[in-house]
């Protein structure tokens, strides 16, 4: 069997970039090729050169190689030089960054490290197959857009103009959403000096003229099932149900104002002349100023910014649009009452981007007075409201008499359970923070934790209408990308282009439900019997389910229980009398592995006893691998991933948290086996933490030396 596989195996060793200085490549080639009789086994001074790649291609063609192991630089480098044919598996062994550049040249330990890494790479390839991509039948090209406000309409227009079919669902009887209530809009084009007519009317007209868009108003989603590329949405409209198909979804359900009933301390509900920004907007739109001012106002109007925002008792965040809205509304008042003083008390006046120019223009109003401050007291005395504020720019408290107080209230995202997903993990999109759906803000702003469903506009993060329009464009592009990737049988993100997917050996499933519960993306539903029902296009290929499964029935064609176990077994363990330790490190490919590469690039030196196995996510480490490693004789096991918890860095949201939990459980199990819990250590590093790596390894090695070698060594 082994010989059959080896017949299509090619092994290449690059000796460039200092590798030949660190190790004797010829000796390595000889010992490797003796252990693995491959069809081709070569060394080359620069494999990445045209001549080098040509050599590999020639071998692939002539010897029909389908498994290639390249011992050279990091797999993160020259990704476009080496064969990327879907039927060929290429394993890159990191002999440069993680051996030659971080170890002393010519030593026995360096040689052993290089040999182990080569053997691990080769055994992994031998235990892998080229993936057969999963492509659902009849992938739908339609994009479903939920919400017909400015974000939804812009998204629909953008999608239609990109040639996609669009289905737009709006809850209300008319399109336009919250922008229909505006008198004027915050400027969004040069010269940003005064408010403009709301753009929404034009946008609705444009949308109605688009042929590719189907609009359903007064409609709600009854339920939504399926997976990216193949969603089925059932819509309730005027009491009857209609079913449609969609490939991807843009969620643009918008926001609602923070409930001012909670703001009694600012006088709302308690004092007659305390209103909110939406109230003032309505008055301006309908020109009903006498409702606000029974008598002609003489004292002034005062705006309180951050009314219930950036306040842990109310909304802890900044809603981004209220400051500019106040500036806009001062122009309404100024037009109507030229001599009326207008006061603004803010925490910070935030006018992002070009709105700075708007701020500067509005400030030119002689009777507009603004200061930082905390409003501490609001009282009414006849027609006059007296507002007291502390911590002002004056360095003293101030007291202002006014006729009207306007509260700038923040945005609350709409409830995403309106999507009515039939996912096992719930009807809506999981929150990141404060009720806003998000999966990894820094890297993937539009991605929610439901693959194929992209959030846009104020339901994703607080923003003004101009930002909503921009956001809608971005989300639509992601939706289109998603559909196209699914048609090719590839993962969308973050492992874009990955053709492997989790395959379950259902006969051995015990219905323990760990995979269905722990998948951060809700990729598994359940059959009526309770067994997992995978939806491969919902999957992000993180392998967290692989790490969770106690029966080890979940595997990817190129990342499986078997191939990692084979790698572990490929490492030569020095016997107990040699006093040489071996540490196995499972390293997250997203941040920790590049950090190791950077340590090499900086020529930081660290102990040669570590053997690295890159994993898709630290959450994909299965318990059996730890058992295998310990019984094989490794003295300690490092799990290195991204930071969990609040402000997590994990690219798969929960991976590092789950790994930590599992490591803790396993430490308990170790004690029952009379092994020290220190034999497993979890570490969290960021991509920029390469400087910490040598210390991290030294510290752990010292711990291991203190507790002594693994007693199972040599058994």
């Amino acid at each position, binding site marked *: 069997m082994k010989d059959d596989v080896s017949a299509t195996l090619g092994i290449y060793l690059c000796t460039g970039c200092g590798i030949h200085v660190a190790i004797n490549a010829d000796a390595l080639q000889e010992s490797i090729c003796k252990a693995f009789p491959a069809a081709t086994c070569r060394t080359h001074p620069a494999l990445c050169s045209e001549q080098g790649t040509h050599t590999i291609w020639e071998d692939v063609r002539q010897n029909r190689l389908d498994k290639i192991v390249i011992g050279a630089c990091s797999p993160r480098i020259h990704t476009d030089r080496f064969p990327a044919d879907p039927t060929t598996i290429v394993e890159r062994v990191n002999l440069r960054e993680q051996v030659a550049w971080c170890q002393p040249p010519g030593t026995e330990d360096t040689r052993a490290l290089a040999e182990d890494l080569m053997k691990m790479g080769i055994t992994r390839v031998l235990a892998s197959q080229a993936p057969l991509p999963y492509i659902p039948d009849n992938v739908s090209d339609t994009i479903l857009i939920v919400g017909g406000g400015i974000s939804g309409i812009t998204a629909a227009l953008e999608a239609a103009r990109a040639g996609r079919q669009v289905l737009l669902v709006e809850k209300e009887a008319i399109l336009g959403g919250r922008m229909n209530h505006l008198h004027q809009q915050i400027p969004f084009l040069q010269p940003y000096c005064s408010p403009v007519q709301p753009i929404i009317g034009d946008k609705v007209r444009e949308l109605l003229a688009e042929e590719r868009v189907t609009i359903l108003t007064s409609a709600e989603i009854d339920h939504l099932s399926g997976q990216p590329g193949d969603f089925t949405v059932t819509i309730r409209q005027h009491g009857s149900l209609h079913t449609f198909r969609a490939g991807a979804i843009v969620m643009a359900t918008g926001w609602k104002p923070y409930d001012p009933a909670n703001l009694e301390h600012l006088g709302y509900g308690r004092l007659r002349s305390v209103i909110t920004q939406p109230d003032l907007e309505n008055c301006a739109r309908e020109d009903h100023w006498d409702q606000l001012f029974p008598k002609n106002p003489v004292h002034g109007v005062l705006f309180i910014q951050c009314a219930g925002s950036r306040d842990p008792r109310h909304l802890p965040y900044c809603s981004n649009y209220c400051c500019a809205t106040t500036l806009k509304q001062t122009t309404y008042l100024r037009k109507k009452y030229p*001599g009326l003083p207008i006061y603004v008390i803010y925490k910070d006046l935030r006018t992002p981007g070009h709105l700075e120019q708007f701020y500067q223009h509005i*400030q030119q109003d002689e*009777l507009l007075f603004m*200061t930082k401050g905390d409003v501490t007291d609001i009282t009414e005395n006849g027609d006059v409201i007296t507002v*007291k504020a502390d911590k002002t720019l004056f360095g*003293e408290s*101030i*007291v202002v008499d006014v006729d009207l107080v306007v509260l700038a209230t923040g945005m609350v995202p709409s409830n995403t359970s309106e999507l009515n997903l039939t996912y096992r993990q719930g009807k809506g999109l999981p929150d990141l923070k404060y009720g806003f759906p998000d999966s990894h803000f820094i890297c993937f702003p539009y991605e929610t934790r439901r693959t194929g469903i992209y959030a846009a506009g104020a339901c994703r993060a607080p923003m003004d209408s101009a930002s909503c329009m921009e956001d809608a464009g971005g989300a639509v592009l992601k939706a289109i990308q998603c559909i196209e990737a699914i048609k090719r049988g590839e993962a969308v993100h973050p492992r874009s282009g990955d053709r492997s997917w989790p395959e379950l050996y259902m006969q051995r499933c015990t219905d323990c439900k760990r995979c269905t519960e722990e998948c951060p993306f809700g990729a598994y539903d359940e059959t009526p019997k309770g067994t997992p029902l995978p939806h491969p296009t919902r999957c992000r290929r993180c392998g967290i389910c692989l790490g969770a499964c106690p029966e080890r029935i979940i595997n990817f064609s190129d990342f499986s229980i078997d191939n990692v176990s084979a790698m572990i077994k490929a490492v030569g363990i020095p016997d107990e009398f040699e006093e040489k330790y071996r540490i196995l490190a499972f390293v997250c490919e997203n941040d920790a592995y590049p950090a190791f590469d950077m340590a090499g690039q900086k020529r930081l030196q660290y102990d040669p006893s570590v053997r690295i196995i890159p994993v898709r996510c630290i959450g994909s480490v299965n318990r059996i691998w730890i058992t295998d490693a310990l019984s094989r004789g490794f003295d300690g096991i490092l799990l290195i991933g991204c930071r969990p918890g609040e402000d997590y860095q994990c690219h798969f949201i929960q991976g590092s948290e789950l790994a930590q939990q599992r490591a803790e459980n396993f430490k308990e199990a170790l004690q029952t086996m009379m092994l020290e819990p220190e034999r497993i250590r979890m570490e969290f590093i960021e991509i920029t933490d390469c400087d910490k790596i040598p210390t991290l390894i030294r510290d752990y090695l010292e711990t291991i030396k203190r507790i002594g070698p693994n007693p199972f060594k040599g058994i």
Partner: protein
Amino acid sequence: MEDVIQIKTDKRFIRQVKSLGGNPLKECMQCGACSVVCKLSPEENPFPRKEMLWASWGMKDKLIGDPDLWLCHQCGDCSATCPRGVQPATVLSALRHINYLEYASPRFLAVWLSKPVYLPLVVAIPALIILLILWMAGTVSVPDGPVDYSKLFPHPLLNGTFATLVILVLVAYWKGFRRFKRDIRKNQRAKIKGQKSKKNNQKRIRFFYQLKEILLHTQFRKCQTNRLRTLAHILVFSGFLLLLLVTLVAIVNVLFFEYPMNFWHPAKIAGNLGGLALVTGTMMMIWYRLFRKDAIGPSTYADWSFLIFLLLLAVSGILTEWARFGNWSAAYVIYFIHLVLVWIVIIYAPYSKFGHLLYRLAVLILLKDRR
């Protein structure tokens, strides 16, 4: 106890500040960059940020008698730094102007000097009064023979009338100055309230320290943006001081010794040097105001009129001297014009921009815990 301000905004005051050169005043966003960059601003309660806020809120009460206005030398570092182009230096200049108007006594003189429409009046008054004195002395005619100015304006009469006028003006100034002093003291107390008041037995030392500071421009020289302007001010200031001393020597000479003095008399040399310094300095300042608007901001009528009168004063003084040595026929007319300019610059001092000499000196001496 905490201070509470009852807000009362004054639109007229805001307009006044804007009209006197502080036009972009309202666009201040209170970032405080001006106070950070200012080398002269104290650590506690720094200016000009707070002045910008008070001014944009029209809080006149806070700004009349605000001592910090006089610590500013309008070097322009703040205006060069301001991210909003608000020009705090110019705003403070406008506020100082409002203070001249506020404390001037009689007030109408300050108003006349701040508006171009009153220019004919401002010139005509000294011209007519001097003519009146000459008419009373019976010397309103161009005398014959070599040029001798005492033939036109006998020295006792000149010294007597001008000294009387100076004393009258000082009395008038004193009236406003007492109010100014009271306000400064009040604001100063408010500022250092709560701090331990140090017993101050070094009044004299402080006085001399301040005098040294003024003479050597130690504060002014901290300016980064307009270094040449500091030089110009040193020239004008020292030239003026020299001329003032020479005038005193001349009066003493007239009373006790020989007059007019020989060209190589030390006092004469000093006077000529002073005149040159004054001309060079004022020309530099005029150049600055004309071509470096970006660095020092817009100039108002008060800025220009004071500067031009000062230049004309110096030029006419030099011409008067040349006319005497050269026996020019126009000598007496030039001398007359020079006398009118002396009046405009010196007698009007408390009402014009020249008042900064008096007010700033007063504040520097009055202020206690400056450091």
